[in-house]
């Protein structure tokens, strides 16, 4: 691997880590607050990509307006899922997880029926120009996600530490009963967590729609790495998810470039098994899962 390829791969790895980070942080946040795993989170990502496809590529709406719409739409889906699935099944992780598996099926079929199965949807890139770093050509559109991920997740961590509402979020994650005794409405906080989680997934999906082929299977491809990141980072730990997604984004991209995608997937799963044996609570988790 020469220097040029190494730089290019590192840039791609950075973008992949940021995408994984935005998905996994939302997943981890929702898990921390509700003790609920959302299998349909990959489909949230896909819904964001489809919103941008429908508005920007088909409807001719400006790109940034379409991104905003994707955030809004997926945030709305997140709130609806919280109300319709997670609230009735609260306290039963398995039921919530399985019900969101069912929801994932529904969203996939919906997108497939409306916009067609199997065909690769082409979303034109809003910014065509590549830019050069030390002789390597880096795709500008792919790098767009990096500032958004840093701003979004930095903002989230700041919000959770400094704002009253963010502290309430953390309080519910620590002990829902004690939090509700302090006058925090659990339902409002879980809705907030799902809203944030959906908005991050929608933003990531919208930004990545110009890179990936938009198909109904898109959600499927991202959900397993995202879950592995959440487990390795520590369940419900936002900081752990950030660290783990950087590790996995770089490992996955470099192994894919050197070998291929199947080997990369295997390496990631093997790393996860190793972490589980040595540290079952994950890198930053407090309690065993």
């Amino acid at each position, binding site marked *: 691997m020469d220097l040029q390829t190494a730089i290019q791969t590192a840039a791609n790895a950075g973008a992949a880590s940021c995408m994984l980070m935005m998905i996994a942080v939302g997943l981890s946040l929702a898990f921390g607050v509700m003790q609920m795993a959302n299998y349909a989170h990959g489909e949230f990502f896909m819904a964001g990509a489809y919103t941008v496809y429908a508005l920007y590529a088909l409807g001719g709406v400006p790109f940034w307006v379409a991104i905003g719409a994707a955030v809004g739409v997926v945030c709305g889906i997140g709130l609806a899922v919280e109300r319709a699935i997670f609230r009735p099944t609260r306290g039963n992780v398995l039921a919530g997880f399985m019900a969101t598996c069912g929801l994932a099926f*529904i969203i996939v079929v919906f997108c497939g029926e409306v916009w067609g199965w199997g065909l690769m949807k082409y979303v034109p890139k809003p910014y065509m120009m590549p830019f050069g770093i030390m002789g390597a050509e880096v795709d500008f559109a792919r790098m767009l996600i990096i500032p958004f991920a840093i701003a979004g997740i930095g903002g989230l961590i700041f919000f959770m530490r400094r704002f009253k509402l963010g502290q309430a979020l953390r309080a519910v994650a620590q002990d829902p009963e004690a939090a509700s005794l302090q006058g925090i409405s659990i339902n409002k906080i879980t809705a907030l967590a799902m809203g944030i989680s959906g908005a991050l997934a929608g933003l990531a999906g919208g930004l990545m729609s110009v890179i990936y082929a938009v198909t109904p299977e898109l959600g499927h491809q991202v959900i397993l790495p995202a879950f592995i990141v959440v487990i390795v980072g520590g369940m419900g730990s936002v900081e752990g998810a950030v660290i783990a997604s950087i590790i996995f984004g770089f490992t996955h991209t470099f192994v894919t470039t050197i070998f291929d995608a199947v080997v990369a997937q295997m390496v990631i799963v093997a790393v996860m098994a190793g972490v589980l044996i040595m540290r079952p609570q994950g890198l930053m988790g407090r309690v065993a899962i």
Partner: protein
Amino acid sequence: MPFFAREYVVEVAILFFIYIILAQSYRLVTTTHDWTLCHVVLYGVGAYTSGLLAKYFGIPVWVCIPIGGVMASLVGVGVIQPLLRTVGFGFFIASYALGELIRLVWVKVHTPFGGPRGIIDVPYPPVVAGVDFSKPIPYYFMCLVAMLVCLYLMYRVDKSRIGDAFKAISIHPLLAESIGISVPKYRTLAMAIGAFFAGIAGALLVHRLGAVDPRVFDIITMVYLVIWVVVGGTGTFWGPIIGVCVMQAIFEFTRPFLEMRPMFFGIILIVFLVFLPGGIESAIAKAIARFRARRGVVAEKV
């Protein structure tokens, strides 16, 4: 029955028997509250083992099928070792990931697993005493017998001390440990037994289809398996059987809407989890209890 039905119906019935073994073996694993998401992969281990042995080593199919079960059992024990320290959410995601690892090995390694296209030309069972087991009707009876034997064995496990220990672990692991049940040992045992029967089911499948495709053993099939078990209920032995019956009937009737089918299944799954978490069997049990109560009231009045 099979002598009068069309061949297609016989084929569906064979699949139906295999699915009952699969669903019941999954229920056995879930009695310890370990909802693994790699059960379909273990079913695939049985299929691959039996298919490869019969194809490349010429071992008789009757020997291959139990070996497939044993192999699935060994792989299941291997898979659960890193997972024993996790419960609940971590457990099922990690089991999903490890199952996916095994499946990717099949996709990646071309010899002997055949890569993404799987293996073809798996031998059918031979002619024994004038009965040709490669034809659907003899195979139907073979599967029927295999299913009854497997169900009987699993029923005995479920009712034995071991089965009680599994249920104790699912209700209260700490309490179970305090009365001398080794939780990791029994979780491994549940996995080993469940995986064995799943492997048998897989081996029965491969010698009927004559081919293995690694795509069959992915997470989608796993979710379908979970749907059967959830719809039927896992509280008693009969729940998964009811689940397979009901869902396979729906599966066959929704054949005209092939692309919409996952949506129906998704809706059914959500409705059951939200409104009837105990599955159909709990509804039946409730109905029987109400019926008995009403009859009791009538009897008192008389």
